């Protein structure tokens, strides 16, 4: 995401994002195996189903921490604009899709995809923002 990785705060943030992404994959796999192979039932179902969301929440907290720790105000500004792009894109898409579901009976959009959609739009915003300052 960032063009310069000399900045230790950026490096730490990117590393934590990668760890978070790996944990999401790993814990999703664990949850999927628990439900599909081990046929998990009972009260354990809830914490197990929540497990893959924990690294996602952690990455969101790390994003806030990065914004608080980053001393380079320009880089902070670029990331904030990307996050706004992500939020705006996600809200727009899910609102349009919600209306389509409600009125035109299109297939249901699984809420589990929201986080991926958010980062998709944030990543899409990055080159647009960066081009403005080039």
């Amino acid at each position, binding site marked *: 995401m960032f*063009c310069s990785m000399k*900045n230790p705060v950026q490096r730490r943030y990117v590393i934590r994002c990668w760890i978070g992404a790996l944990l999401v994959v790993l814990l999703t796999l664990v949850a999927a195996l628990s439900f599909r192979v081990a046929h998990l039932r009972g009260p354990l179902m809830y914490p197990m189903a929540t497990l893959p969301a924990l690294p996602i929440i952690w990455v969101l907290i790390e994003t806030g921490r990065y914004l608080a720790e980053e*001393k*380079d*105000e*320009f*880089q902070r*500004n670029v990331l904030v604009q990307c996050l706004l792009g992500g939020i705006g894109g996600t809200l727009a898409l899910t609102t349009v899709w919600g209306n389509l579901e409600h009125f035109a009976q299109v297939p249901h959009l699984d809420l589990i995809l929201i986080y991926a959609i958010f980062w998709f739009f944030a990543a899409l915003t990055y080159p647009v923002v960066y081009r*403005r*300052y080039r």
Partner: protein
Amino acid sequence: MKNRLKVLRAERDWSQADLAERLEVSRQSVNAIETGKFDPSLPLAFKLARLFGMRIEEIFEESGQ
């Protein structure tokens, strides 16, 4: 906001990367400020002024003035 950063930098024979290192920001930040596409905060403007030994208003000029 217009500024004289490019000239001041050239007078000292500094590259954008040199200035960025002195300011502890990225080269992209220096470029964005220099081209007038990003206005620095007051603390960064003071840091720039101190670095060049000038007052802020000798470096930056409000657009349209």
